[in-house]
C-alpha cells in the first residue's frame, strides 16, 4: 500500500503497557484504563494506580470509552516540531476532555478553524495511518 511508505510523521512505539490501547484503536474502539480497586479512569496507560488514596499494583483494567468529549484547549500550529507535519500547517493540536474524565492529546479535524472554541462537543473518529496504527482524532459530534 502506498500510504505505508509515504507516512512521514512520528508513530507510537508500542510498549507492553500501551499495546492494548493501540490494538483497540486499530479496531476503531477507544479504551482507557480504570482501577479495579478505586474506580476512576486513567490515561496514559500505566501498571499502577495513581489514585490519591490507592496503592493498586496490577489493578488497572481496560474499559470502553463513549468516544465523546469536549475541547479543553487547542492551538492552531503553524510551526511543527517534526517536518512530517509541515505539509499540513496550519493544523489543530488539542487537549480533549472525555466523558470518562480523562484528557488526551489529539488533532481536531473537519471543523473550520474560525468555528473552534473551548468547550465545543466533539467525538472520536479514526485515521488509519498505517496497517498497524490507527490514530484517534476528534471532530464535530454527529458530524
Amino acid at each position, binding site marked *: 500500500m502506498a500510504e505505508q511508505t509515504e507516512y512521514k*510523521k*512520528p*508513530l*507510537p*512505539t508500542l*510498549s507492553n*503497557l*500501551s499495546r492494548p490501547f493501540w490494538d483497540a484503536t486499530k479496531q476503531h474502539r477507544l479504551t482507557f484504563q480504570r482501577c479495579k480497586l478505586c474506580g476512576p479512569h486513567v*490515561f*496514559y*496507560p*500505566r501498571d499502577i494506580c495513581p489514585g490519591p488514596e490507592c496503592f493498586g499494583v496490577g489493578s488497572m483494567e481496560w474499559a470502553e470509552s463513549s468516544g465523546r468529549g469536549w475541547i*479543553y*484547549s*487547542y*492551538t*492552531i*500550529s*503553524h*510551526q*511543527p*516540531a*517534526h517536518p*512530517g*507535519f509541515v505539509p*499540513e500547517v*496550519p*493544523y489543530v*493540536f*488539542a*487537549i480533549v476532555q472525555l466523558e470518562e474524565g*480523562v*484528557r*488526551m*492529546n*489529539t*488533532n481536531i479535524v473537519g471543523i473550520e*478553524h474560525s468555528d473552534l*472554541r*473551548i*468547550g465545543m462537543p466533539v467525538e472520536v473518529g479514526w485515521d488509519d*495511518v498505517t496497517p498497524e*496504527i490507527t*490514530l484517534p*482524532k476528534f471532530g464535530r459530534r454527529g458530524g
Partner: protein
Amino acid sequence: MAGSLRGVAAIVGIGELKPERQRRGQDAMSLLSEACYLAIQDAGLTKRDIDGMVMEPELAVGGGGFNPKMAEHMGIFPRWATSSDTQGAAGVCMALQAAAYIQAGLASIVLCGIGAAIDPDAPRRRGGGDATETATTEFQNPFGPTVGANGWYALIAQRHEHLYGTTVDKRAKVSVDFRYNANHNPMAIFHDTPLTVEEVVNSRVIADPLHLLECVMPCAGACAYVVARADIARSLRRQPTYILGGGLGIPRNNLTHVGEITLAPAGLAARDAFRMSGYGPRDIQVREIYDSFTITVICEMEDAGFCQKGEWVEWSKDQDFTFKGNFPTNTHGGNLSAGQASTAGGCAQVTEAVRQIRRDGGDHQVPGPTDIVMVTGSGGTFAQQSTMILGSEAAL
C-alpha cells in the same frame, strides 16, 4: 511550624555570560565553567573554598554524573554535590538546595550554575520525532506538537484568553515593558531593538494564539552564583544577598492530564516562599519572574497573588513593569528580551535580583528601594515552578 531557610545563607558572588544566538566551538561545560570562575572571583574566593556544588545539567547534557564531570573539568572537588533536575525552575532551586545543605552542615560555600550551548558545528538533535515514552511522547508526537514549548504554552494562552479575555493586544504589554528594560541592559540580546505593542500583535503566529514576539528565542550562555553560610557571607567582599524563603510547586508533569492548566505552579511555591520569608505580595519591591512566554508571566503574577485570578488584564492597565515603573519586573529584560540560554535563563533571573539588591544595575537599576525581591523559575510547561524571596541586610 516546619523548619525554615530564612537568613541561613546568602548569595555572595555572581557570574554570567551574555546570551548569544550561538557560540561556536563552546560546549555547555566550557560555558558553565567560565560563568563559575566569574562567580567565584566576584565573591573574592578561591577554588579551594568551594565545598559544595549544585551543577545543573542543561537539557542537552545527558548521561548523568554531571557534578563529578564539572568538578574534574574545573579542578574543584567539593565534599557534597548534587543536581536539582528541575529544568527551568533550577535557577531558584539551586539556591534553595544550597541553603538547605548549608543548614544541614553538608557544605558551607556552594557553587551553583547552569550552562547551555548552541554550537553550529556540533551535531544538532532533531526534535519532535521520538514517540517512545508511554508517559509522554508516545501519545503526543503522533499528533504534531508545535516546535519547542510554544504549542504547550499556546494551550494555556488559548484557555486563559477564553476564560478571561487575555488577547494578544493585552498580553503584548509583557513583551514591550520587558524590552524597554533590555534596551537599558548592555548584556541583553535585544539591547539595541525597541519594541511596540503593534509589532507584537503583527508578528507571525507560531502556535495560535501565541505570536513570535511573545515567545523566547533559543540562546547559548551560562550563569552561576555562589551561596555561602550567613556568617561567612558577612566576612566577604560583596554585600550579601540573603535567601529569605522559597518553595517549589509540582502539580503535574504534562498539561494534558492533570488540573486546571491556567493555574501556574508558582502560586503553590509562592505560598511557601511568603510564609518562610515573612513577606507578602505587597512587600515585594522588584520581581524577576520566569518569562518563557507572555502567558507564563501573566499566570505567575495572578497566582502569586499580585492580582486576583483572571483580573490581570484590568489590573495591568495601571501597572508599569519597566525598571522605572511602579511595579518593576524583569529589570534586565527577562528571558524574552535579555535572552534565554535554555534553563540558564532561570539562573539569570537570580543574578539580576542580586544586582538590583546590590544597587549594581547600572543603566537599568530600579530607582526605588530594592531590598526585597521575588524570583521565580519554571520547568516544563507548568510542571514545576519555584519561587524565592531574596533580600538585603535591611530585609533580614
